[in-house]
């Protein structure tokens, strides 16, 4: 339980501490040279999200798993009390459910950490790039000028770990939403303020 909640109460820690050079491209770090860091937030580098994303992800997946197992229990009840179903089938279903418990448990424990290591955001002067996916990789680029409006949302678990999601809405269709989930709570508004198209900034 201690490792499940490793960074609890880390709210006031230095955001820049994890801002170190994350992997830059999906595979090759060397081929893409990064410009010298700008003093601003928009340094054009790929950053990992808040590591608190891992425990939050674990809790979220644990809840989902419990719900799934609960539905499984209802299904088990249904199967057990149905007279028409043979004993062999019943025991198979039971053992299937029992086997599901460790599978879901291990998956919920491991997966958030894995996907955390493959999720990056990059803020440039005029756009945001979000990159995610362990097997199915996806990289989305939203220019500042195409941002329609933004949401910063936070659930109870995320609040306990001081992270929040930044959701960027564009006028597009298939990729109209770009969700950067798992930013440090104090960083999300900074990113948002950078992305919102402030006319005065643009013309200066």
């Amino acid at each position, binding site marked *: 339980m201690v490792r499940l909640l490793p960074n609890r109460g880390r709210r006031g820690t230095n955001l820049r501490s994890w801002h170190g050079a994350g992997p830059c491209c999906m595979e090759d770090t060397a081929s893409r040279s990064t410009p010298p860091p700008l003093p601003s937030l928009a340094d054009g580098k790929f950053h990992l999200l808040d590591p608190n994303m891992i425990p939050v992800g674990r809790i979220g997946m644990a809840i989902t798993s419990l719900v799934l197992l609960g539905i499984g229990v209802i299904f088990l009840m249904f199967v057990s009390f149905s007279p028409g179903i043979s004993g062999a089938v019943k025991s198979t279903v039971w053992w299937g459910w029992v086997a599901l418990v460790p599978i879901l448990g291990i998956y919920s424990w491991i997966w958030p950490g894995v996907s955390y290591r493959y999720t990056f955001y990059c803020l440039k002067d005029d756009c945001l790039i979000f990159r995610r996916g362990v097997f*199915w990789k*996806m990289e989305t680029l939203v220019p500042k000028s195409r941002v329609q409006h933004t949401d910063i949302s936070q659930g109870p678990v995320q609040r306990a770990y001081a992270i929040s999601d930044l959701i960027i809405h564009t006028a597009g269709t298939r990729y109209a939403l770009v969700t950067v989930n798992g930013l440090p709570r104090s960083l999300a508004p900074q990113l948002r303020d950078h992305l919102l198209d402030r006319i005065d900034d643009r013309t200066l």
Partner: protein
Amino acid sequence: MRALLFPIIAGILTARGLFLVFFFGLLLLGAIGSALLRYWRYRYRFAEQELVVEQGWIYRNVRHISYVRIQNINITRNLFHRLFGVSGMQLESASGSEPEAVMESLSPAAIDELHERVRQAKQRVVEAPGAVVEGAGEAQPSTALPLPRRQILRLGLGELTRHGLVSNRGMVLVGAALAFLFQGPMADRYLPDFFRWAARLTERLPLELVEALGPVVWLLGALMGFAVIMGVLSLLSVIYAIVRFYRFTLSVDPESVRAEHGLFTRVAITVPRRRVQLVGYRANPFHRLLGRSSIRIETAGQSGGNETASSLRWLAPILPAGDAARVLREVQPEVDWEAFQWRPLHPRARARILRVRLILLGAATALLFIPMGVTALAALLLVPLVFAYARGYARYAGWAVTPTAIAYRSGWLVQQQSIVRFIKIQTVSVTRNPFDRRWGMATVNVDTAGADPGGHGIRIRFIDYEIACELRDLLEEKMSETNFIW
């Protein structure tokens, strides 16, 4: 939320047995509870450049909407609103179909302030030095003088006949007729008679004749029957085309494109040119045989792809292939329609397409082998087709970048092209699945507003990953130079 509530209440009312009532009651409590949690706290404030809406208590959401982006402010006042001297407001920007903010009660002063701030913000955009804004003159309503309008395309009966033959929409009419027959008021009365008649006809076929004629004649008969059916369908399709597109004319003025057509119902649709998000070009084999093609457009504000009477979809249902560039130049003069330099996909795209299809075909054959036995091997007759497909696809598919737009084309028998101006691109994404990575390929998606979900868009598959990254960087640069305002 409301959508959820109704079935739950219906469930309570119709449920039999205490357990079910309890179950649905629990659901109801849960639904109300979650709504409370979500909407408990709702407040807004006017910030310098944007409207800020804070919402929720356990799940919190803070939304920032730039005044510049606000498109519509809808005010509703029901009885309660009027009693308390307030209004309900729905606020829409360009994204999605749902209003971006819904406020149940707002004082008149607050609404006035919002209007004023939106107006001022839009004013600032227009006046900002160096801001590239398309349709900046949109704010002032068009003057009383009608703009000079020029006709650029007219489709006569000959073209419409070709369109009918090429598009083969006869099945639509057959389907409509069948639906009418089976569902209409006549179904009950005439359908049994029809089946009785059909049964009697088959009984009367003289058996001796069947045996005497032999298989060749029967085959000929079947072919003739097929030809007759195809002929009738084509005829229906031509009639459909003529009824729908009779006297199709396309005309332009400096600001908009207008199409007029229809035999019984005359339709005239006008679309501001700057609303055009994507131009699509399509030619099936019959089109190419007759030297024709078709052009469609996607406009903003018709998301979901459902074609309403008031949306312009066909710039030209059919036109001589040689005229396409001329018409397109009239509609989007910003694009160099002749200057496309098509670049191919990854050199191994053909090999990959071929391999995937062959594996799929093999798997399908193996599956069919279980019930069908050796007959299943007939599926292997499709192998040459697979080769032809892979070759044709890889040869035609490609992409091009001009100074103002990006174009993508793909297809084998039905060849399609999509052209999007940089200014209309919303997001660019590069995706790679495990197979892509194995082959060193990627898919580049260019998202636009109002895209038809099933339609052809800029979704460049099997592109070299390195080139995809270059393309992404190029698009980033081009998009940042422009500001999207519609």
